């Protein structure tokens, strides 16, 4: 093998240092990014699937509770309800939402004093705060690190909205976390809150 004429000895450390790296194969960067994006979508999809069971259960409870609540309020407190201007005009779809409240109104005329909390389901409540998908990703990760069942996150079928159902024990932590992302949940007693998810991919 040939050698440099003015230097019969080779410094291996220098040789290693000077050894150039290989260029990234053509197209690998794009392939990697596609892989990452696919992984991200898959994880979001898994979350949606995980939440499906919870949503189904919630819907069942909601319909049951809504039926009971409607009957109770109709029979017992119609006039009282009107005087309190409580909005009770829900579609069946809307009925899912009240189910997320952990404090269903118990029967009996006296308990109708609790009814003002239902004001939170009025139309104005649907002016939801906005969250970016990227932020949601981080929020989800952070909530997942909290003790088990800190919050249940329901994701809309088309990932266009999410509903947080926060367990009371973790509410302060989660509210602080959300406030960090500029999200201030409209909290009314023990009510859940709703967040509109905007996709910006």
């Amino acid at each position, binding site marked *: *093998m*040939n050698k440099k004429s003015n230097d019969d000895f080779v*410094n*291996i450390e220098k040789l290693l240092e000077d*050894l150039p790296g*290989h260029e990234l194969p053509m197209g690998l960067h794009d392939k990697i990014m596609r892989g990452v994006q696919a992984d991200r979508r898959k994880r979001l999809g898994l979350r949606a699937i995980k939440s499906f069971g919870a949503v189904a259960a919630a819907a069942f409870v909601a319909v049951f509770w809504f039926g009971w609540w409607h009957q109770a309020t109709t029979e017992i407190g119609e006039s009282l309800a009107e005087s309190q201007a409580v909005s009770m005009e829900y579609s069946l779809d809307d009925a899912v939402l009240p189910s997320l409240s952990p404090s269903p109104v118990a029967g009996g005329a006296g308990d109708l004093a609790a009814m003002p909390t239902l004001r939170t389901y009025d139309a104005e409540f649907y002016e939801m705060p906005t969250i*970016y998908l990227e932020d949601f990703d981080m929020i989800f990760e952070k909530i997942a690190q909290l003790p088990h069942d800190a919050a249940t996150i329901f994701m809309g079928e088309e990932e266009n909205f999410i509903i947080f159902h926060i367990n009371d024990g973790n509410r302060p932590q989660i509210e602080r976390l959300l406030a960090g992302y500029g999200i201030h949940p409209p909290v009314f007693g023990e009510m859940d809150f709703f967040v509109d998810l905007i996709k910006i991919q």
Partner: protein
Amino acid sequence: MNVLEKAQKGNMAAFEEILTAYEKFIYNFARRLMGNTEDAEDITQEVAIKIYRNLHNCRGEGLLRAWIARITHNACMDALRRKKGKYQDSLEMAEELSGLELVDDTESPEETLVRKELGQYLEGALMQLPPSYRALITLRDMDGYSYEEVAEILSLPIGTVKSRLFRGRAKLKSILTEQSGGDIRLKG
């Protein structure tokens, strides 16, 4: 907010910026540990996804370089364990790794040829070292990581890093001298 913080908040553009900055290192480190381009490409993709998933665990931009190196090293070691007994022989690896562009404008064509030959010998010799030595030499001598960083990445005490590095270099010199039939004489 720096690029890491943005990426940690889920900003894909920031993540891509980080990836662009480190993908060549990841690929080269993986290629030197795995010994072939296909595995290196697979490892690079795997590492990118691991980085994306675990970015929130990185505690600062200054630690990103070592953190990524550690993920890459672990991914390679896992892959090597899975492939145990299926190693390509070193000659095949050396042939594959010899496609290097060793170009220096200040060199004469003859000098470039000599350097290219040396590079080929060196890559071949490197592949004959155990993966743990390859990782040490690649990180310290080729990529310029500090002893402390190498120790952190490989989860070894600094003393062990230094002693293994010494032994690795000595072994590399011995292989290189033997491979070249004594044509290459090494300092030290």
